[in-house]
Structure formats: structure tokens, C-alpha cells
């Protein structure tokens, strides 16, 4: 039987730029970074969670032809290629940290819901990222 989700992938336009965003800004850690010919197997993962890796894929040969790659790049930059949802233990703190690190593409500032506090950002390429802190938020100390 299946025991875990091992790898999920997200399409990006540039793996190096993706690495800078997801690791240096968002705070994930690098998983695998292996070159195989012209292909770079590059993944990131949640710090301390070695089980699930998120691979970065760049549209292009040899996996697909140039025309398909161009179509995908158009879709990615329109924000049509889906995204990722993370959990956090402190969404509001993370919001401050992201701003200090230079993130500006917030689709939604931290907002309280009935299921917790969540916020939305976009990576440099257009992919949507949601970050959720579960449970009812504590009142911030004045």
C-alpha cells in the first residue's frame, strides 16, 4: 500500500531563481541537487521533513518540444498552473519575515478564517502559494 507522498513538482521558469525564492526567501531547505547531463534534478522540502520533496521543473526539451514549453511558460506566468499549500506555526511572523526578505507579491495578507489564519503569495513565476496556520489565532499582545 502507498505510505507517503514522495515527490510533487512545481513548474518554474528558472531553477536557480526558484531556488533563491523557495530557500532564501520562503525558508524551505534544499533537498536534492544533482546534474544528469543537461538536466538538473532539483528539489526543496520543508525543513525537518525529509519525506516529501518538491521538485522544480523547467518546461523544455528533452521532456517536451519547444512549442509545448512555450505554451507552458505562458500558462505559468498567467498563474494557471496551480500551486502549493503549506502549514506554518506562525503565519503573521512569517509575513513580517517575508517582507524583510524582499517578497512583495502577496495575494492576500494574513487573514483569520474559521479554520485558522492564512495568507497568499506568488513565486516569481506566477505560481500561487498558500500558507496556513491552523486553529483559532491567539489575540496578539498589545
Amino acid at each position: 500500500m502507498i505510505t507517503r507522498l514522495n515527490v510533487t513538482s512545481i513548474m518554474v521558469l528558472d531553477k536557480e531563481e526558484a531556488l533563491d525564492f523557495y530557500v532564501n526567501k520562503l525558508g524551505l531547505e534544499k533537498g536534492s541537487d544533482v546534474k544528469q547531463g543537461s538536466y538538473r534534478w532539483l528539489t526543496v522540502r520543508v525543513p525537518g521533513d525529509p519525506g516529501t520533496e518538491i521538485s522544480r521543473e523547467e518546461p523544455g526539451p528533452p521532456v517536451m518540444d519547444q512549442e509545448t514549453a512555450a505554451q507552458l511558460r505562458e500558462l505559468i506566468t498567467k498563474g494557471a498552473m496551480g500551486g502549493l499549500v503549506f502549514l506554518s506555526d506562525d503565519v503573521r511572523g512569517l509575513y513580517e519575515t517575508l517582507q524583510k526578505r524582499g517578497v512583495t507579491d502577496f495575494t492576500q495578507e494574513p487573514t483569520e478564517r474559521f479554520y485558522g489564519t492564512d495568507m497568499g503569495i506568488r513565486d516569481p513565476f506566477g505560481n500561487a502559494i498558500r500558507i496556513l496556520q491552523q486553529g483559532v489565532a491567539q489575540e496578539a499582545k498589545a
Partner: protein
Amino acid sequence: MSREVEGLNRRLLRARDAMDRAYAEPLNVRAVAGVAHLSEAHFIRSFRAVFGETPHHYLQRRRVERSMFLLRETERSVTDICFDVGFMSIGTFSRTFREILGETPSSYRAGNGPMLPPTCYQMAATRPVVNAAAQRSSSFGEAASAAAS
């Protein structure tokens, strides 16, 4: 050529996100076009080419979606909701809502209760699709001159 297209799409997406954040405020096309580093006219044309509708149409559908959310999830009056989401008059709100969804705000409220999926999915998935006839004929509450683009 492809790199230019990617850059334009990404800037238009950023502008669209800016509209989504400020949906309840009057649409400032110049400011939103500025987010995409485009002139107003170029922005409106490009937005329609890339996203399939004018910025105004997109914003009106976003406002209707937000009004649907408030109708489902809160007890606020239809009048209050109208102004909450950025419509300037009850008449425009009711007409736009009816044209897009085929029923009145009150009827929608009566037939729909609170939803379970997380808000981000609701925002994306319940944004109303306009039927072909309404797409052609509906001005979505905008003045005739503004609709020409």
C-alpha cells in the same frame, strides 16, 4: 519573443492580483496599469488578450463572487453587501448580479448555505462564469463609453 510574452503575462497577473486585493475600492485603471508598467489603453487590451475579458469585467465578477460569499456566510443585508464589495448603487449591483447568475441576490441567499472548502478555493471556484448571451449583451454595470476598449 516568448520571453517578452512571459514578462507581460507575469506583470498582468501582478496587476490582476492588485485588483483582487482592492476589489471593494473604485477601479483605478491607471494605478493598476502602472503595476503592469503599461499605459491604460495598452493594459486594457493586453489584459483582455491574456485573460479573455476586460479588467472591468473581471473586477465585476470578483465583486459578485465576494457578494455571493457574504450572502452565503453572513447575515448582512443585501444593501450593506452591495456597498461592502464596491458597487456604487443597489440598482447596478442587483442588475449585474442577476445578469451574471440568473437570479436575485435574495434568491441566491435563500438557496445557498455556508461552504466548507477553504476560502482560497471558494474565491477561485465560485467566481461566476457568465453565459454567452450575457457576455455579449451585459455591460456589467459600466457606462457605455467605458465598455468600448
